[in-house]
């Protein structure tokens, strides 16, 4: 899908192979995986546990370096980057929505976003207006923005998680099982939100999920099995 655009501003994985040591042999987590996601596209990846979904996210997030193949994020070849450059790439071009919301316990909802601004050398004070607007846009407004994670519901925490991932205006949004800790209704709301922000923010979004009932908002659904990626025909 839109190869040239994906390579320039979205996400592209080409013939990516990733193996892990497993006793005397090596276990193949990703077996010649190729994937291109264009800006504004939500791609869902389903598959059984241990099929390689999380490994794919980790490689796309530059948290793991593949044995071979090419990973291009927002036009940059991640394989050619040093560890320091890869960290900067995550800071500026990749947003990660974690499975558990993984919010920092000491920070309020709005401060979770301002911490990202501080990481990038920005002024938290100067970024507050934009952080509040972003939280508003994901459905967390008013006094709730000043609450810490333990004072928010699971759905609200996941909304903060999404807002934090979007705050640096990334070109790629990687979403790891966003509904695993939510009931069906709240899970559906979160997937709707992800689909909306993908369009509004023109992010190349990859969502890993096990919940097949929430896939109707995805532009494309792929199936991962034994480290291989294929079009899912059951959707």
């Amino acid at each position, binding site marked *: 899908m839109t190869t040239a655009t994906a390579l320039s501003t979205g996400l592209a994985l080409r013939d990516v192979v990733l193996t892990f040591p497993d006793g005397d042999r090596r276990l193949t987590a990703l077996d010649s995986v190729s994937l291109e996601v264009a800006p504004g596209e939500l791609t869902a990846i389903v598959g059984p546990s241990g099929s390689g979904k999380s490994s794919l996210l980790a490689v796309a997030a530059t*948290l793991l370096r593949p044995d071979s193949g090419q990973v291009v994020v927002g036009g940059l070849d991640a394989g050619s980057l040093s560890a320091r450059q890869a960290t900067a790439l*995550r*800071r500026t071009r990749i947003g990660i929505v974690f499975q558990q919301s993984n919010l920092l316990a000491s920070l309020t909802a709005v*401060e979770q976003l301002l911490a990202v601004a*501080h*990481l990038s050398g920005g002024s938290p004070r100067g970024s507050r207006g934009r952080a509040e607007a972003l939280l508003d846009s994901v459905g967390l407004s008013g006094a709730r923005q000043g609450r810490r994670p333990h004072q928010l519901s699971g759905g609200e925490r996941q909304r903060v998680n999404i807002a934090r991932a979007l705050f640096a205006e990334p070109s790629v949004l990687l979403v790891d099982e966003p509904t695993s800790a939510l009931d069906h209704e709240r899970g559906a709301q979160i997937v709707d939100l992800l689909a909306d922000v993908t369009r509004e923010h023109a992010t190349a979004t990859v969502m890993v999920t096990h919940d097949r009932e929430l896939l109707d908002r995805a532009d494309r659904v792929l199936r991962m099995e034994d480290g291989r990626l294929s079009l899912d025909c059951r959707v």
Partner: protein
Amino acid sequence: MYVALRDIRFARGRFALMGAVVTLITTLVVFLYGLTGGLASDASSAVADLPVQSIVFGAPHGATPEVSFSDSGIDAAQQAAWQSALGAEAVQPLGIAMSRMTATGGATAVSVIGASAPLLPPLLSGSAPADGQVAVSRTTASDDGVTVGGTVTVGSQRLTVSAITADRSYGHAPSVWTTESTWQQVSGAQQPSALALTTAAGSGTAALDRAQNTDTVSRGAALAGIDGYSAEQGSLQLIQGFLFAVSALVIGAFFTVWTVQRRPDIAVLKAVGASSGYLVRDALGQALILLLLGTFTGAAIGLLGGALLSGGGMPFTLGAATVAVPVLAMVLLGLLGAALAVRRITSVDPLTALGANR
């Protein structure tokens, strides 16, 4: 330090507890520092404040000269040789002995210093003592009701008080000053304990030392010749050293536990693009805030307590160094302990934020 400051605010109980520990250790170190300085002054100010550069200790021919005011003695030949070589004005005999002074207002153990007028501490009233006269330190004079023109008994000698001097002491006994001749009568010694030189110890004095069987050391090094001085100071400094080591260990242990507890947060921050350098700076900033607050509070308490103690007669030196040195040492050693602890941040794998078991 965006996250660091909010961590302190969020976990204020834990940081307050740790800050209290830093405060208590700093208070203790400031107390010890002031006490060490006070005891040092109490044991040595009569020598430490002499307007000379070096002290010559002597021994009879055949014996090895030692840096010890108790064991040292300078015979007439040695004194004459030194005065002949350096000039009489540059070489002043110095006698030191312990005795007891009785006045109408009370009796006090005193250190009796036999020295010429140039070696006397500042005179607050009266004039330098002649033979049969004595100059008494201000506090002792005040405590015992001694005034210029009055009489006191030092040892078995009845002496007229010629002057009141600034406070000096030797061996934790207040000093009284008299002439060499009167000192010999009071102490029963036939020769001065040492020679005080207005020149520095060096190659010129080394040859004389060899020829005269003497040992010349700087005025500062001569303090080791005061009975018990080195042992007393060494003990107190050892305790200070232990306290500094304990503080570094305690801070290090706290930040080790704190860093382990924060591993999930650190993994998330790394995953969203925080560098290890950023996180280490953040954590060290947190440690610095804790240390500064703890040490400054501890120093203030130490100063206040020290002022109360010194007012009660305890030897305690209050000064900028009393506070600055312990505070600086506590902060630097605490940061060292914290740095050793937070280096674990560099080993946190951001992949664990995605749920990997690594």
